[in-house]
């Protein structure tokens, strides 16, 4: 067979390589990426900026990963066009493929804002180069930062900059932080933790206009900054597949083997849609574990095997200054039973909470803040859509323990092969 070609070099791409190599040890794989770096962990760009990890620890796989897996790389190259059995690089060079994976990820969405072109030090904080560049500015004396967008990317950038002693202001159009992941109570806890560590929030407003180092907000406030981070949102990179005639909705459409509607073309990661089993609909689940699992499933299929990926659920593990949040599934649903409990410290202050969301005879979502140990037991109930008839619900509400399962489950899972 001809080469496998993978466009992209992050989690989905690496999952694909590892998936292919389960079945096919020999056929060469070519990775094409527009970034010049060997595979690195994208979420770690904030940890690198904040000094929470070192540059040499951000790489997602070891130095010999490509040679060990017979992968050749074309780094710093952009794919301009997808043809029936080849891709064309922007340099004009054509690379033939037998099977292709599109793992092009997502791109930042930056709404039009007057005067943005005047701002020199502006970043979208989506890649290693932006992390290195901001690091350089901070090292050279940048003292203040404005972050537009209080989602995961914006808040991790905020934490990193605060750790570096930078004065941070975060603005968002929404009235709360992390609106897509957290309810009001959880959002307030995260905001408070960041505020305790120096962050200033201006919520429910947008930036109207920019000078080189000043933002003028709609609510009348004026914010000066040395560094501007634009983290409003992301959009899947679907253009290559769309222009080649493949089906695209919010993201690239695939079947459960990650195959697109184009012959021999697969897709995985943030550029695709996933079927969220908790919401019962296709969604963009731009999450690293999801990207890896999709990529791995694609790789196995590309090599002739079958490994359906049909258990996708939203899930997040994130922390700010030691306050951990773990959530999974459809945790915002309000039409079913909800079990909620506050976590308090010795003085009675609320430090976190537990929220379990039930659907028809199953757990469909949860949020744990502060007390997050063993959260995966809940995740598993959601992922496997375990019937509540098979578990002890009182035990389940108390804490995530395997005791909630019956004896036969324990015999099978703890006494056998899993």
């Amino acid at each position, binding site marked *: 067979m001809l080469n496998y070609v993978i466009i992209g070099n992050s*989690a989905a791409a690496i*999952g694909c390589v590892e998936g292919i190599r389960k079945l096919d040890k020999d056929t060469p794989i070519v990775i094409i990426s527009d970034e010049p770096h060997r595979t690195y*962990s994208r*979420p*770690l760009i904030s*940890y690198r900026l904040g000094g*929470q*990890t070192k540059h040499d*620890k*951000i*790489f*997602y*796989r*070891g130095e010999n990963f490509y040679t060990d897996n017979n992968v050749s790389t074309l780094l710093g190259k952009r794919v301009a066009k997808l043809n029936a059995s080849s891709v064309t690089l922007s340099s004009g060079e054509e690379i033939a493929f037998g099977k292709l994976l599109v793992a092009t990820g997502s791109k930042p969405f930056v709404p039009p804002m007057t005067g943005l072109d005047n701002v020199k030090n502006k970043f979208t904080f989506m890649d290693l180069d932006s992390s290195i560049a901001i690091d350089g500015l901070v090292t050279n004396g940048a003292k203040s930062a404005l972050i537009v967008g209080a989602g995961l990317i914006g808040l991790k950038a905020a934490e990193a900059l605060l750790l570096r002693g930078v004065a941070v202001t975060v603005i968002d159009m929404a009235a709360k932080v992390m609106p897509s992941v957290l309810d009001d109570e959880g959002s307030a806890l995260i905001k408070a933790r960041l505020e305790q560590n120096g962050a200033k929030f201006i919520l429910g407003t947008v930036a109207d206009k920019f000078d080189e180092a000043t933002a003028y907000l709609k609510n009348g406030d004026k914010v000066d900054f040395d560094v501007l981070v634009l983290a409003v949102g992301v959009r899947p990179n679907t253009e290559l597949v769309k222009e080649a005639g493949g089906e695209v909705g919010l993201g690239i459409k695939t079947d459960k083997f990650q195959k697109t509607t184009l012959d021999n073309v697969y897709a995985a990661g943030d550029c695709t849609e996933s079927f969220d089993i908790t919401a019962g609909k296709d969604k963009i689940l731009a999450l*690293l*574990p999801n990207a*890896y*699992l999709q990529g*791995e499933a694609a790789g196995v299929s590309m090599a002739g095997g079958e490994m359906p990926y049909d258990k996708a659920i939203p*899930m*997040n*593990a*994130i*922390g700010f200054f*030691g306050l*951990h949040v*773990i959530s*999974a599934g459809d945790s915002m649903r309000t039409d079913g039973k909800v079990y909620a409990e506050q976590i308090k410290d010795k003085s009675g202050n609320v430090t976190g909470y537990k929220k379990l969301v039930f659907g028809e005879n199953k757990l469909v979502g949860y949020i744990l803040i502060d007390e*997050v*140990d*063993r*959260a*995966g*037991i809940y*995740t*598993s109930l959601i*992922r496997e859509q375990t019937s509540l008839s098979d578990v002890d619900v009182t035990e389940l509400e108390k804490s*995530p*323990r*395997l*005791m909630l399962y019956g*004896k036969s489950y*324990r015999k099978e*899972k*703890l*006494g*056998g*092969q*899993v």
Partner: protein
Amino acid sequence: MKKVYVNEEWCLGCHLCEYYCAGMNSGERDLVKAFSREKKPLPRIRVEEGTDVNFAVQCRHCAVPYCVKGCITGALSVNDGVIVCDQTRCVGCLTCVLSCPYGCIVRDEEAHVITKCDLCLSRNATPACVEGCPNKAIVLEDRE
């Protein structure tokens, strides 16, 4: 491959396995010394107590390891069937805690990393939990 299994019929719920695990993995062979340190050693095995049954549980070294597949840094990997964590690459994001169906990833809050059972491979000996269980409820067996 040999793995650690617990026969819940025999588990007394004494928690000794937790002490042996934590002690041995602290690198200090003397349990009293290990637990006298300022930083208490962390067990990677956990006993669940019920009304009429107790059992210990630690990493199942799953064939489909969601923790490894979901690890954002690449710190978790499978080494000859054993799931191991390179703590120098772990940032304590807890995506593995989110992912593990058995709740077997242990947080080391102070060090901002996770730790987990590696079947005592790192100390090249029979797992301390197996060695120390007074009722032989914890065994090392090949059940494949």
